[in-house]
């Protein structure tokens, strides 16, 4: 009885949130997979795109496709205007000081590589240390390992506990005057843990270390204020924020970006080139060599408009309710074990089923029209910690419904039947 009341309560919390209305904005959601309505629960891998984003990209190619920052013709002016106004939208979205601090890159991965190479390679040596965590996505591990090979800088990891949370006292022990960079995910892609980044940033700054926050999993769930956080770098990908693939953002404090050498050379990142030398362009163009992903940037701008219209506050209330509902329902399934039980969590449900490999779960769920991610989620150290090869991960977005979670539960029961 109690449980039922709880579930009713959860559903009531978000009855003002008109999911069905929002679902209409996403053309892809209205289809059948293997004869069943698509239930898309792989939002941590990539989110779906609203019609307004698809339209913005199409409009660019249909009406004003052109190169930017150089043409004097109308199409080029329109394209430049759209590109730069998207930069302003990003700046406002994360509350940066200036558009000079917003660099467009291919995605969070490229942004981290850029910082590692441009900021790290030129200033670090084997006397220095970088702190990352056991919870990271490979994108926030491998660039630092490469940097370590190149410069000798020492790489240290903040450990995690059995709930999948960072062990903060251990972080304190790792910090010292040699620490130059701390790079931490805002939210874990494998487990959904929300890390205490405010504390992490403040503590690092006490030692003068710079902090990079990997926000790939965060920007679609929670509002980000880089000024308030006082992080030195913040990176995210457009495609996890209802925007297109191939576009992402590096935010960096202006004074740091100013000091950093270019990451790549080419057109658009220069002021003047002679055969002897090159004078680099101003920020942020110094870091945007070559013709950029113009349609991607425009699509990202449209995605931010869309998210702003719904409001991240409303999104997070609905997603939390979905997570609570899913948590309650799945905890009734015998043999199901949650991996990642942090107190502060976003709408990611990582689990294992006794005696059934996640890959088999994924295939059986797909046969029921349900898309989830199975595997190590590009976070092999996390799997190593829990001594499992893989998990099944259902990740919810604001367009998911209680009914879809019911379908998930039913399909999990079906997995058990297949293997019984």
């Amino acid at each position, binding site marked *: 009885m109690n449980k039922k009341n709880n579930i009713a309560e959860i559903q009531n919390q978000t009855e003002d949130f008109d999911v069905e209305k929002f679902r209409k904005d996403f053309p892809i959601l209205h289809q059948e997979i*293997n*004869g069943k309505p698509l239930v898309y629960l792989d939002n941590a891998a990539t989110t779906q795109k609203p019609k307004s984003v698809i339209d913005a990209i199409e409009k660019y190619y249909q009406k004003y496709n052109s190169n930017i920052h150089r043409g004097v013709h109308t199409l080029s002016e329109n394209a430049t205007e759209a590109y730069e106004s998207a930069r302003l939208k990003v700046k406002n979205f994360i509350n940066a000081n200036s558009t000079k601090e917003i660099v467009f890159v291919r995605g969070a991965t490229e942004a981290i590589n850029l910082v590692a190479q441009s900021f790290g390679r030129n200033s670090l040596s084997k006397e220095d240390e970088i702190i990352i965590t056991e919870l990271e996505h490979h994108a926030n591990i491998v660039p630092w390992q490469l940097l370590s090979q190149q410069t000798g800088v020492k790489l240290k990891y903040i450990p995690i506990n059995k709930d999948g949370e960072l062990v903060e006292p251990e972080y304190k022990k790792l910090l010292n005057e040699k620490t130059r960079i701390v790079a931490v995910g805002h939210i874990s892609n494998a487990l959904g843990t929300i890390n205490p980044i405010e504390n992490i940033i403040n503590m690092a700054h006490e030692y003068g270390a710079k902090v990079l926050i990997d926000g790939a999993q965060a920007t679609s769930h929670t509002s980000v204020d880089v000024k308030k956080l006082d992080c030195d770098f913040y990176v995210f990908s457009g495609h996890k924020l209802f925007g297109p693939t191939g576009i992402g953002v590096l935010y960096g404090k202006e004074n740091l970006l100013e000091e950093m050498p270019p990451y790549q050379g080419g057109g658009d990142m220069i002021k003047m080139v002679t055969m002897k030398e090159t004078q680099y362009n101003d920020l942020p163009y110094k870091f945007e060599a070559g013709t950029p992903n113009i349609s991607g940037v425009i699509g990202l701008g449209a995605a931010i408009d869309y998210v702003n219209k719904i409001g991240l506050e409303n999104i997070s209330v609905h997603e939390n309710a979905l997570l609570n509902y899913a948590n309650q329902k799945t905890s009734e399934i015998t043999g199901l074990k949650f991996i990642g039980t942090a107190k502060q969590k976003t709408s990611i449900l990582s689990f294992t089923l006794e*005696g*059934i*490999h*996640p*890959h*088999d779960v994924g*295939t*059986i769920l797909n*046969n029921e029209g349900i898309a989830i991610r*199975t*595997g*190590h989620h590009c976070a*092999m150290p996390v*799997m190593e910690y829990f001594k499992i*090869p*893989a998990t099944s991960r259902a990740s919810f977005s604001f367009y998911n419904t209680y009914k879809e979670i019911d379908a998930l539960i039913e399909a999990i029961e*079906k997995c058990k039947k*297949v*293997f019984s």
Partner: protein
Amino acid sequence: MFDIKDLYQEIIVDHNRSPRNFGVIDDADKILEGFNPLCGDKLKLYIKTDGQNINDIAFDGTGCAISIASASLMTDAMKNKSIDEAESLFNEFHALITTEDKFDSEHLGKLTVLAGVKDFPGRVKCASLCWHTLRSALVGDNKPVTTE
């Protein structure tokens, strides 16, 4: 639409639950690891040969039902086969799980239960991991196999 039971046939579920030839051969002359970096499936093959014939074969490791059942069925099928026979069985099995071509189901025997994999392109690698590992151990360069 595929029936999921076409993929997870009873024999597969059974071989996953109680894999045959699961373990280590202490005096194996060929030991080779196969790894699927995409999903983390990891198998190790232990083969005892006299240079021309497979006298004994076993495996251990972790993986999904398809990869465990495939390794279990493969090791069963390989016992006391010559290396030449193993090679031709490899080719037939490969055809079984990837193409519509005719294959000699009598020759493949129980291995035909894995034919359902063909309809699940993402899972072909699961079924073939142990086979690629075997081939590399027997006739290839004996280097650890990855399916990527």
